[in-house]
């Protein structure tokens, strides 16, 4: 098996804009699935609504494209119905932490054995560029034309509030590191969450003054540093893993 076996080639090209980060992350996950030799018939990929939500349909496995915010409960139902399935949720920050936020809190608390890959581009891209729960304070969007008045949601904090947890932050630039995170996430028994710092050039970046996707990718490189042994919670500019098997602390 190679990564190509996990992609529905007849669905290509994707709906994603040129310069988008989602495809990069999508491909890293297919690399990891091939490396881990996950049988296609054991794998189910589930998405919600939004640009990232289209990903489920591009995986060459049984997949589900749910309504907005409901990828996690559908995934929990699938996993509890058939424990043999490897269940991966691939969706966006607005879908998972905004409209689906309640499910994120509770499925992670119940520690159901699914892996969630969250593309965090800090914006509602598909609907034109509205403020997301992850939008940085002060950022101008269609629904925060004078700059967002709010702090972005702390997803790391939500997940690690559970005594037993597995949370990682990666980026669409540091792809080898991201592959390691994804591999560890799918092998973790229990709820695992990978927040992938990404970007949206068409419906966010251009309003912020970026000229193309490459500039946004380069910004990720500048902004984020890998913390191999983080002391305490990951700082805002750190990538890495926060985990607790529930035995310690």
């Amino acid at each position: 098996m190679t990564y190509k076996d996990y992609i529905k080639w007849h669905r290509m090209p994707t709906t994603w804009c040129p310069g988008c980060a989602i495809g990069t992350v999508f491909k890293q996950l297919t690399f990891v699935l091939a490396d881990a030799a996950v049988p296609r018939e054991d794998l189910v990929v589930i998405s919600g609504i939004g640009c990232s939500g289209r990903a489920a349909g591009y995986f060459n496995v049984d997949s589900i494209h749910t309504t907005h915010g409901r990828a996690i409960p559908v995934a929990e139902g699938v996993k509890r119905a058939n424990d043999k399935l490897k269940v991966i949720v691939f969706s966006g920050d607005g879908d998972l932490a905004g409209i689906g936020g309640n499910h994120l809190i509770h499925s992670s608390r119940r520690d159901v054995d699914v892996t969630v890959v969250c593309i965090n581009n800090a914006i509602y891209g598909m609907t034109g560029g509205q403020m997301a729960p992850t939008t940085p304070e002060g950022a101008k969007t269609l629904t925060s034309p004078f700059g967002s008045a709010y702090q972005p949601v702390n997803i790391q904090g939500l997940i690690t509030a559970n005594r037993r947890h597995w949370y990682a932050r990666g980026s669409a630039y540091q792809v080898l590191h991201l592959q390691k995170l994804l591999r560890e996430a799918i092998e973790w028994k229990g709820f695992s969450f990978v927040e992938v710092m990404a970007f949206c050039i068409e419906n966010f970046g251009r309003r912020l003054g970026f000229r193309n996707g490459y500039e946004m990718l380069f910004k990720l490189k500048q902004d984020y540093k890998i913390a191999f042994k983080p002391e305490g919670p990951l700082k805002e500019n750190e990538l890495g893993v926060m985990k607790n098997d529930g035995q310690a602390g």
Partner: protein
Amino acid sequence: MKQLIFGNEAVALGALRAGMTFFAAYPITPASEIMHILAEREHEIAFVHAEDEIASIHMALGASLAGRKSMTSTSGPGFSLKQEGIGLAHMMEVPLVVVDVQRVGPSTGMPTLASQGDIIQAAHGSHGDYTAIVLYPASVAECYRYTIEAFNAAEKSRSPVILLLDGLLAHLSETVDLEGLAVDVMPRTLPPLGQGERHFTGLLAKDGTPRTKNPGYYREWFARVKAKMLEAAKSYSFSELIRNERADTLLIAYGIAARVIRPLRDEYSIFRPITIFPLLEDELRAAAAGHKRVVVVEMNDGQYRGEVQKALLREVLGIPVLGGAISLSEIRERLHDL
């Protein structure tokens, strides 16, 4: 063996008899006992007390796709929240049973008092056009039987089937002989997840590929799904007609209201739809034939009356019984005043 059980209990036992192995719900009066009873079976079935109504129906949907007969239960406020998942199950063609034990609304309303106010919501509560199968029993034995039939209809139609109860029926205790009730149980019809490459989506799609800008395909798709639903519903068209040859008035009632007006059969003909949607048009016409007046008695402001009138193309009168209180004497009086 005869035993004394109540409506909600019969629903839980019927679901188990039908082969349900996944149940997710959120507590709500007057439906909670279904949850309590199934929680006791946690070691036999997958049971989830979910964080909310929306989660529970989506869990049931996921579990059904993964191969288990699945159910969720609720009352009006939760039924409103579940409409999102009901629409998704229609779009994805997923078998599912959704139980709605009706109470007085809108909103939080009168939680402990029974109503039949969710009739139209049961058929049209989710946005867009779709064809729903809705069953409404009227006794504890029927709660058991029609829960099983709801699962059968869900498999046959590959759709979310709605089972309506009301707060009175849910808490009504009767002696029933469950083992003695012969009901066929339909096996699963949807191949479970893990087949390789199917894509289930809430978007309009053809063979898993979205077709979101193609009105022509939408019409073709809609016609296929509607025909499928109506064909499946034919096997689950349940009703009861008590014809009184001396009566010039036909009463139509369902669920608990039908129970209450049963003594009126000496003066009136009574038609009781059990499958309340799709509308039993042929049966309604046959029942109405030969009667000067048709009167729908229901615990709402005339929701089913409008549907019956559409089907019969003649004036249909109604006795709306509101506020969670129903009594035979009141209905008798209002019938005389019509």
